[in-house]
């Protein structure tokens, strides 16, 4: 049983660990992130598919630290990462520190309620 946080595309799994809410197509089996009710991008089958909670762990494919942002509400610097999830899909997320391609990362949840954010953290290199 997993918990969803305020419509966010992530939540917590049975042991309280962060999970990413994905979907699996009932027709072609394609696993994707995020969960959405509209249809499968691989085969076009309509509907939401099966809910699929993906472990929030994977390997960094690319990383970039953003130093300037047009929206003053967004604090800089921060680091974005492209992560190949162990469950298949490639996702983009915010890293809690700095990262480099090849890092093994795992997500943690920060904050509470509708301010909960998901941040990737690198395992010790």
């Amino acid at each position, binding site marked *: 049983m997993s918990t969803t946080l305020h*419509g*966010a*595309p*992530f939540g917590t799994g049975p042991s309280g660990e962060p999970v*990413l809410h994905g979907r699996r197509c009932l027709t072609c089996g394609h696993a994707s992130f*995020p969960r*959405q009710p*509209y249809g499968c*991008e*691989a085969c076009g089958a309509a509907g939401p598919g099966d809910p699929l909670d993906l472990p929030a762990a994977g390997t960094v*494919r*690319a*990383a*970039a*630290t*953003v*130093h*300037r*942002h*047009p*929206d003053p*509400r*967004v604090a800089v610097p*921060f680091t*974005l*990462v*492209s992560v190949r999830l162990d469950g298949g899909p*490639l*996702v*983009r*997320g*915010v890293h809690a520190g700095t990262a480099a*391609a090849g890092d093994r990362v795992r997500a943690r949840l920060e904050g509470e309620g509708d301010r909960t954010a*998901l941040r990737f953290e690198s395992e010790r290199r």
Partner: protein
Amino acid sequence: MTASPMTASPKTLADLRPVYVAGIGLHPYQRPSDTPYVRLGLTAVRAALSDAGLRWTDVESAWTGTTSLGMAVSRGMLRHLGATGIRMTQVENASASGSSAFRQACLKVACGLAEVSLALGVDKPLRGGPARTGVPDLVGRHGIPAAHFALLADAYAREHGATREQVAAVAVKNHRNGARNPFAQRRRERSLREVLDEPPIAGTLTRLQCCPIGEGAAAALVVSGDAVERLGLDASRCVRVAASVQRSERLDDTDAELTRVTAAEALDQAGIAPAGLDVVELHDAFAIEELEYAEALGLCGKGEAAALAAAGAFDIGGRCAVSPSGGLLAMGHPIGPTGVGQIAEITRQLRGEAGDRQHPGAAAGLAHMVGLGAVCAVHVLRRPV
């Protein structure tokens, strides 16, 4: 690769009657100002009419590429050329809006539904942004375009061993070209040191490796061969549009892969090998993109563009002049006009009218844009014979 239903479509531009760019016009790209969009657009259209030797009453349809101005952009502007009853339509395709407007004008004339059609791009960065799909992601407001391309730059540098200096060399070249373009938003030459010493925006990309978003307008008049004769146009200044292809991404396509597939189709349609291209205008919104797309277009092998760019292969006078206008990095990226402005630059180059930006012997050119979504438009143009 198996053919998709898109590539299996029965006819291409090459199967229809020939179409030509007979006139080009621009309003300089510039920082956002109080200038009304009507002034920007009319300046470009009047310049294009004058360049072609056409009257407004000769123009039968107009396609306006625009993203941020609101509804019914064409009417409020074009009425001041005389309300002729012209067919007018707005075209929105993110950064590729102008390219798509140009494609529509080409198809309209090629099909025989018009003899003279206007492709216009006009924009001011007022509002807009992508439509909200309601499908969430993990980055939210953190996910800006510069970050997207900084991630690509990181992956490219790792995969191919490209250095910061090699990527920055693209910006040095494009600012050098922009400094010679009276329509460019950025008109200052920059040294490698200047480009690298700017504070980074994202990853290794500094400010001068990211395009400025401003305002401006660009126009191109597309005509049939019949119109060239009937209206007494100067055929030696009419540039043939040899290919027009537009696609969108397939599952897991990157912008570079989408570019590769679209450009291959366009070059095949035009009957030109990549090595036969003399001038290329591409979507260099961020310096790293020029390297990725140069490879995707087939100008060089995978992983070779960084060293070639740094060695001058893509300079004016090099093996292929890439972004001779200054590209998005220096000429600027006002969004709606950008794709039409590329056509204007290539037309100028193929006519041999590019002045101190002229690439010697330019006979074939290619224009490439990608737009969010992602869509890709590629046009191939040939020198008048």
